[in-house]
């Protein structure tokens, strides 16, 4: 869900070029003994099996992706303690994507061909996923991607355990409509995720008689929101839909409050602010504002209480858990479910067995969709409380089937084209 189109294009071009080079120079890795295993050299003969974690441990995304790595590690440790996957202990090979899409592609290639891992878990920005996609497809390997994103993608080599648009943005719009919003103002960072999200929002608004009073984009890292907030204030919409990313949120919400705007008068619904970010924005600047995700630390279930307690026990009592962390944790358990259902670590067998695999995740029960490789998740709209945590205010009630191309929504025809 991140970084500019230009960079993405460059990254994809570089990776494709690199793929060619590596493809030509690579040693023959198809070991006949593992037969159907797509990745070729995965060794499942011993008492352990290798898996790869690929997260940015350095660079600008490290702040977010370190938490994902921690959740993956927690899941792996728990699975190993409980006897492993199909009786085999997990041996983790961790690589640093360094916040660079090209590095992600390189390291993915290394994990698949060099380390012969059975599956790779990680990635955060859409640019990193788009860069890795051709690597996983050409090697017929598996990637589990744990972050909500802009949809319009479905690869047989990727499992998407974060929300696609119809599990986050569409329910958020349903929520605002239910609360009586007749007009919206759209504020976002200037790159692919907000632009795509806003296209969907505008199509929804048109079909539902909601007026879009304005649409503003700020460059990533933008720090002065006085003019944008002036425009928001002058437009006087019923609600603001916020797809800003990173530090810009802090400047935006401080400006919003100082301009005298409040969550009661004009709520700002955000899709990129989770428990982690609230502290940096300052609870006082954002209290009462709604956000849209599929998981909150405050979810009242036995699974979640255990997850939160285990996470705090492993990484410190002040740590919070958030949606992408939970989706990463869940992704490892889903892979375990797939392997045990397929009774095989081979990619083709897993792809065949994936549909219908379920897991009682901290967010609730999730089910893998065998067609598009996303998972059915319950949408939750939460409000930020004085305690800095997010409390569920509205729920879709049941898991929503993933629909990355929004095919089942008549108003969305033409968006995916």
């Amino acid at each position, binding site marked *: 869900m991140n970084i500019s189109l230009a960079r993405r294009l460059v990254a994809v071009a570089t990776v494709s070029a690199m793929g060619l080079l590596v493809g030509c120079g690579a040693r023959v890795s198809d070991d006949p003994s593992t037969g159907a295993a797509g990745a070729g050299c995965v060794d499942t003969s011993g008492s352990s099996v290798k898996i790869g974690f690929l997260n940015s441990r350095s660079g*600008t995304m*490290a*702040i977010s992706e*370190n938490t994902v790595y921690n959740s993956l590690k927690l899941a792996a440790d728990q699975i190993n303690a409980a006897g492993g996957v199909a009786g085999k202990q997990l041996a983790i090979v961790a690589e640093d994507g360094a916040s660079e899409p090209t590095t992600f592609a390189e390291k993915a290639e290394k994990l698949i061909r060099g380390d012969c891992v059975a599956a790779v878990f990680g990635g955060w920005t859409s640019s990193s996923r788009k860069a890795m996609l051709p690597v996983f497809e050409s090697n017929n390997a598996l990637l589990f991607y744990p972050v909500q994103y802009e949809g319009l993608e479905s690869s047989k080599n990727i499992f998407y355990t974060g929300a696609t648009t119809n599990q986050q943005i569409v329910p958020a719009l349903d929520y605002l409509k239910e609360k009586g919003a007749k007009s919206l103002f759209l504020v976002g960072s*200037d790159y692919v995720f907000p632009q795509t999200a806003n296209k969907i929002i505008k199509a929804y608004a048109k079909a539902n008689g909601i007026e879009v009073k304005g649409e*503003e*984009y*700020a*460059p990533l*890292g*933008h*720090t*002065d929101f*006085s*003019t*944008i907030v*002036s*425009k928001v*204030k*002058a437009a006087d919409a019923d609600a603001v839909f916020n797809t800003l990313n990173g*530090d810009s*949120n*802090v*400047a935006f919400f*401080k*400006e919003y*409050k*100082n*301009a*005298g705007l409040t969550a009661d008068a004009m709520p700002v619904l955000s899709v990129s602010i989770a428990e*982690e*970010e609230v*502290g*940096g*924005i*300052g*609870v*006082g*600047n954002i209290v009462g504002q709604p956000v849209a995700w599929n998981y909150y630390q405050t979810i009242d279930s036995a699974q979640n209480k255990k997850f939160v307690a285990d996470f705090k026990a492993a990484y410190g009592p002040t740590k919070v858990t958030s949606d992408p962390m939970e989706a990463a944790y869940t992704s490892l358990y889903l892979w375990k479910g797939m392997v045990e259902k397929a009774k095989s670590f081979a990619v083709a067998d897993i792809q065949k067995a994936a549909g219908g695999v379920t897991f009682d995740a901290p967010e609730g029960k999730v089910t893998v969709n065998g067609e598009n490789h996303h998972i059915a998740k319950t949408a939750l709209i939460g409000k930020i409380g004085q305690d800095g945590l997010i409390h569920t205010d509205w729920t879709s009630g049941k898991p929503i089937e993933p629909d990355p191309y929004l095919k089942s929504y008549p108003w969305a025809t033409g968006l995916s084209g």
Partner: protein
Amino acid sequence: MEILLSQLFNGLSGGSILLLAALGLALTFGQMGVINMAHGEFIMAGAYTAFVVQNLLGDAGLSLLVSLPAAFVVGGLLGLALEALLLRRMYHRPLDTLLVTFGVSLVLQQLARDVFGTAGVDVAAPEWLSGPVEVFGVAFPKTRLFILVLAIVAVVVLSALLAFTPLGRRIRATVQNRSLAESSGISTRRTDRITFFVGSGLAGVAGVALTLMGSISSNLGTNYIVDAFLVVVVGGVGQIKGAVIAAFVLGVAQSWIEYSTTASIAKVVVLALIVAFLQARPQGIFVVRTRSLV
């Protein structure tokens, strides 16, 4: 009319933020010719000083007032250390200075991450600065008024220091002709050190002001360093009044263009205008005329 007034205010406010970030740089880069890439991290250090002071004192109002002088001292001491340990060995080697200070900025950023964590921290604004003041139906955020006043005070104090005090005379003499100043009995070493202390201290003050506006994290400085250099270059190296005019012109231009277009386009247009302006006038708005031959 309301829009006119509120956009003019937004522009002036944006300008005052630029000015605070650039004022210290106008002194160290403008007057001394040192390209200090770590200036942004001195701003960051000021912001974290505000965070530490607030955690120690608790009260947001009192801590803001204590933070301002505290951050001046913290920024100043960092500057002094940089000057004494590294920079004084490489005056007249601008490229080396650039690389060394860039390295220092990376070190300081990592240090901030290690000490304060990678996630952003929050400094609460005092109650008396929250919300807007309504004048003629236009809402002026109090935090922005505070920063505007702070920037004006900083400029007035700095200008008075340069114009009317013996220290100011020594600084100006050193800038205009270093060897002549030295031969008239001015300790240029000492003057350099004090100038660097004051310039870096101003960066610390800017950091405190910025806690009212945006995020406080290890990359706070990198968000401002380029704009700060632009202000000094456009204003004319070696001039405080040039930096003042440049900051306000850039601030107002940014907010006006942004109002009729978008934030991204405004950034591009403003940068294009700067490039065009520097083509026509490479020395900036004002030029220091000296009798030295170089």
